């Protein structure tokens, strides 16, 4: 018997498989992406573990139903040889079957869901680092209450340790997301949301704001730097120091003067310069009468990997005095509104002042 041919069906099949396959192939292009399937910790692992289970079930259903659809179009297309059609109005037994079977499948999935849900919700006991993540418009600030240190754009944590995150915002809603390590939790004003994650491998992982938070939502990024416990401890000790004072008369020292005189201190703080200590931003920012720094604390700016809310890399090696062509910090100081339109950074400094400021800020290791 000749296969019944539906003109569109072959094309349809080719197209659907083509799109599926090519998309999967293209997925290989995303090797730099913060993929949720490339997991580096138990939270992300249990979240994408469920994904694979669902993907298998969904693929089976997809193939069966689309197959039935395409088969029916082939088989029952109006041709002289089409089998005589009967006026069937329904069948209670079949209805019962296809109500109960999907229900069973869905409840199996629900089982995965509820198990995974509580797995992710319950923070296990063990060595824990607590961090307060503060969502600003549009950058992230991280405060470590145990050590009383504050940093921005980079969350530094030790490997193999549970990280407990308190999420705080005094402005609009943000969402904390590190695809390789953990799914999202919203940062909602007035809501004391908490979450936890753990990194099993050292490395640097991309973090993003995932709730629309205004003009520069796209550029509210951070990274999670996972270090060995030793390196982490060294980092903490360094961060606890007051800012280094540059040698008198050096370019950096002139930069420190620019920092104090050009209005930077209105929004930025440096411990040892215009701040006494690095306080919990949530305390100051929750009180309209207190000064909540609008810009990041810069005490150890030179040790950070990102600037400007994660938009630019802090490429200190490109920032030599007098040669700032590729220096991101210099670009940022020269034109913050061009790089990230609408952000709060307003500067009015000469190229000479930028040269000095760069030397100073990059010296703040």
């Amino acid at each position: 018997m000749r296969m019944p041919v539906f003109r569109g069906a072959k094309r349809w099949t080719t197209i659907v498989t083509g799109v599926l396959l090519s998309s999967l192939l293209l997925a290989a292009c995303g090797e730099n992406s913060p993929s949720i399937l490339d997991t580096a910790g138990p939270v992300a692992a249990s979240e994408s573990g469920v994904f694979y289970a669902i993907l298998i079930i969904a693929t089976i259903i997809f193939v069966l139903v689309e197959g039935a659809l395409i088969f029916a179009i082939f088989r029952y297309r109006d041709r002289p040889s089409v089998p005589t059609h009967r006026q069937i109005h329904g069948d209670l037994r079949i209805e019962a079957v296809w109500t109960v079977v999907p229900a069973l499948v869905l409840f199996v999935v629900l089982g995965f869901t509820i198990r995974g849900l509580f797995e992710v919700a319950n923070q296990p006991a063990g060595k824990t680092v607590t961090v307060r993540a503060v969502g600003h418009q549009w950058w992230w600030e991280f405060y470590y209450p145990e050590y009383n240190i504050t940093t921005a754009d980079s969350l530094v944590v030790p490997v193999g340790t549970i990280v407990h995150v308190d999420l705080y915002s005094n402005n609009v809603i943000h969402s904390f997301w590190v695809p390789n390590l953990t799914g999202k939790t919203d940062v909602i004003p007035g809501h004391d949301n908490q979450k936890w994650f753990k990194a099993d491998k050292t490395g640097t992982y991309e973090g993003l704001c995932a709730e629309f938070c205004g003009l520069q939502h796209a550029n509210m990024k951070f990274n999670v730097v996972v270090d060995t416990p030793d390196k982490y401890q060294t980092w903490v000790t360094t961060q606890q120091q007051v800012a280094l004072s540059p040698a008198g008369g050096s370019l950096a020292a002139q930069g420190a003067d620019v920092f104090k005189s050009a209005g930077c201190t209105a929004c930025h703080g440096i411990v040892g310069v215009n701040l006494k200590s690095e306080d919990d931003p949530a305390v100051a920012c929750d009180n309209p009468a207190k000064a909540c720094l609008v810009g990041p604390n810069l005490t150890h700016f030179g040790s950070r990997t990102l600037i400007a809310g994660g938009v630019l890399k802090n490429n200190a090696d490109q920032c030599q005095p007098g040669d700032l062509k590729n220096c991101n910090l210099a670009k940022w100081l020269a034109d913050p509104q061009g790089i990230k339109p609408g952000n709060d950074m307003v500067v009015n400094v000469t190229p000479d002042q930028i040269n000095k400021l760069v030397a100073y800020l990059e010296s703040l290791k």
Partner: protein
Amino acid sequence: MAIRTIGDSATTTMVRRRTLSETYLGQWLTTTDHKQIGIMYIVTAFFFFMVGGMEALLIRAQLARPDGHVLDPQAYNEIFTMHGTTMIFLFVMPVLVGFGNYIVPLMIGARDMAFPRLNAFGYWVLLFGGIFLQASFIVGQPPDGGWFQYAPLSETGVGCGLHAVQCTTGLNADFWALGTLMLGVSSIGGGLNFIVTILKLRAPGMSINRMPLFSWMTLVTSFLLIFALPSLTAASVLLILDRHVGTHFYQYSFGGDPLLWQHLFWSFGHPEVYILILPAFGIISEVLPVFARKPIFGYTFIAWSGVAIGFLSFTVWAHHMFAVGLPPIAQAFFATSTTLIAIPTAVKIFNWLATIFLGKISLKAPMIFALGFIGMFLIGGLNGAALAVVPFDYQVTDSYFVVSHIHYVLFGGSVFGIFAGIFYWFPKMTGKFLNERWAQVQFWLMLIGMNLAFFPMHLLGLLGMPRRIYTFPDNMGWNEMNLLSTIGAFMIGLAVMVFLFNVIASLKNGQLAGSDPWDAFTLEWDTPSPPKKYNFLTLPIVRSRRPLYDKKYPEIADWKTVTH
């Protein structure tokens, strides 16, 4: 004084100046005829479809390449906000109301809607509400906080937060809140009208379980409208009070709560999703039987699964809020209700498949769109079920995975259903067929285009691309998929151009259709095309679910063989 006879009126119109309602334009402006209002709804909705479509193309143009410079960030935020708002409130809702207006009274054997003036009122409020919303572009302050307008971003500066924060100081959010209030008035009026019409004006013999499924779905949708929209209305009014009167409903620093907005918005927003898809389910349930030459399989199951979806749709709203930090037990509840709502949806798909099985399928334009609907909506159902898996949802919510999901449901589902409806009922509305060949071209462009546009978005979501970002850097591995998606979007744009061309050409030179071009089963095809103002000279008597089939094939009539 001479005795006036009927013939006199003909002579008097020749001497008397014609009143407004007698001119061509005036007749449209003053009409209360459900068919004219239906067409006005559909044409208006299509105008806004073009507007929303242009916005979609601008979005895709901006995201075609990394670091795009087509739109600046403010313009991008305005455009994506208005794309969603326009497509939902000004295209899908009104076009489906338009079909309901035109078709439901004909289908159930009524002479008009129950409240013709309320019907006209609903249309005009919609039109002016739509113009009001779009006029925000002229003022230069279109809504820019997303179609969801989350507080406190949608608040004014005062009280939106402490210290230096950026909220919505302009009129942007006011345009949105007032515009949707107006559209809500229109929808509630329309919903009430449909309920009364369907419950009270059915032809003799058309019991509720003989009513065509499109009417069933319109009935369920109407109940959803009148119960869901008040929640949006309340949310919008509170927002306006916060913004202009000095209340603090959504302002945490004054004891309000930003989450109140989300609960109010989504307890409207999720029934809304079904408001956008149930009438399309109805259209598919009308088209499939006619082109498979069989009655719908499992009428009762399709009708009651629609009712079940309607009820359950009020219990699932917080599945839009899995990331807001609800207690795990509450999340488990909403995961369960979401699982439940997937069951009646699956039942519908199986019944549609059973309808075309053992049939005699004719692949005319309405049918290919209906079949395309099943194929694409299935994908939207599957990735939707995946989103109900809470731990996975933490990863993909607010990522491009969700963008993919909503477009498979609303484009692959609603829009394909709408086109099936247009190709099916166009001959009834105009007396002419749309060209089949162009319909095929449009279908394939749309099918390929939508899969190119929306399938890669799944992968972008998995690769960590958040939604609503106006730009992305070169090194994230998102470039290729975004480019593909843009190409797909422009293919859809081309398909819509083909459709417009088809409409214009067919109105001019289309093949004449006659009263019953598809050999259909329901009462609207028992009238001339287009139907007379009074619809039916004598009201039809209904003895089964397929009255016209009974009339045309009396020896094998349904009422002889089945009881329902």
